[in-house]
């Protein structure tokens, strides 16, 4: 399959890239790893008269410690994240989640910025970004913005970014002591995309109770989102199987469950509570480790 003809731009700076975005408006898209955009262009689901490749923009691929958390450049690939000891130390569930994304070849190319910007309802990282309360930093709009992850994902393939905005960086805040993380997904057998994925970040207090709970769900509905009702239920309660189960049953609240060949809405509702319970339990178990 051959995409429609397009003009290719490979600017050297982010400033040039956003200037091109403004100039070509809806006719332009940036290219990161190309693992979602190129297939869409080949299928002619995306028509991109001006393709702006970010590969020559230097300084967009990095992972560094910042304020006790991490700052990650938008063009950092899955592979770079997976291989990073900083990422592993910060929150091991990031490495585990990435290991379950697609395959070696896709992980060599796909980027954290591309995953966020694409906002595929079945993508994995968005669940972790909302659970970690990440910030998506953009440039190219009227002003630089720092968008909270749970406001960034608006709908299927739709984000809070304006047409000329580009993600430059994603920041992950410091996690409290005694925090455990876990990502559990029910994967589509062929693509490995999430039919449902649950990302849990749980902090236990000195009293041994669940002090702070963040639960991000992807795949189930049109966008990755936090399950605030489940979080609130579990906070202040003992980390018991029974409490995880009850919290997990609330995890589907507010989700408009998707229905497609991979599963009915009812099935996704069921998977959401099963995988939320597993992720919560595993996150708590890891506080001790």
């Amino acid at each position: 399959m051959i995409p429609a003809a397009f003009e290719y731009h490979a600017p050297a700076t982010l400033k040039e890239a956003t200037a091109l975005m403004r100039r070509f408006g809806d006719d332009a898209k940036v290219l990161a790893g190309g693992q979602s955009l190129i297939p869409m262009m080949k299928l002619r689901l995306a028509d991109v008269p001006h393709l702006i490749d970010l590969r020559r923009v230097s300084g967009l691929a990095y992972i560094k410690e910042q304020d006790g958390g991490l700052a990650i450049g938008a063009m950092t690939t899955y592979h770079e994240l997976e291989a990073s000891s900083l990422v592993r130390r910060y929150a091991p569930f990031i490495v585990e989640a990435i290991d379950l994304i697609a395959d070696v070849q896709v992980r060599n190319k796909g980027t954290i910025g591309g995953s966020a910007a694409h906002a595929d309802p079945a993508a994995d990282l968005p669940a972790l970004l909302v659970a970690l309360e990440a910030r998506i930093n953009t440039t190219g709009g009227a002003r630089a913005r720092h968008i909270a992850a749970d406001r960034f994902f608006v709908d299927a393939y739709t984000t809070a970014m304006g047409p000329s905005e580009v993600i430059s960086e994603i920041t992950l805040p410091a996690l409290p002591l005694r925090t455990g993380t876990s990502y559990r997904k029910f994967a589509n057998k062929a693509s490995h995309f999430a039919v449902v994925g649950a990302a849990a970040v749980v902090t236990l207090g000195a009293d041994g109770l669940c002090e702070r709970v963040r639960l991000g769900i992807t795949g189930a509905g049109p966008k990755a989102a936090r399950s605030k009702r489940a979080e609130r239920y579990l906070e202040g309660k003992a980390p018991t199987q029974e409490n995880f189960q009850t919290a997990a049953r609330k995890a589907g609240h507010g989700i408009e469950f998707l229905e497609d060949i991979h599963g009915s809405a009812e099935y996704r509702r069921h998977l959401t509570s099963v995988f939320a319970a597993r992720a919560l339990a595993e996150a708590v178990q890891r506080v001790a480790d």
Partner: protein
Amino acid sequence: MAHTITLTVNGTGYTREVEPRLLLVHFLREVLELTGTHIGCDTSQCGACTVTMDGLAIKSCTAFAVQADGATIVTIEGMAKDGKLHPIQEAFHEEHGLQCGYCTPGMIMTLSQVLERNPDPTDEEIRHGIAGNICRCTGYENIVRSARDAARRLREEA
């Protein structure tokens, strides 16, 4: 508008004019006439088109040739040296790692990178490593055996 790209493929430098929409796999097969890289699905799923670019396995049906400007690419044709098969090729030969052979160039190119990152993988790690390469013939058993043997050969060589 055509772009001029300069790249190295299997140790040889090339400079060519390409249309931006030309896929890397079509560039390799049709412009350079290196037809060892196969097209299976053409939808980023099967891995038959895998080559290495700057040492990383990628699906060449999911990259544009213009993106390879300045890159170093290795295809299956670049594996054998001086008439001698690469150790991974030898292992596939000895352990019967193929039937029709369609998936084999992609399998070998993926494994060339997977075994570099992990020289002594378990069977499970091998299977995880080739998860992006589909084989419709072998049922994978002999491919895993070949990969294990390839790893041993590469370790002994090092």
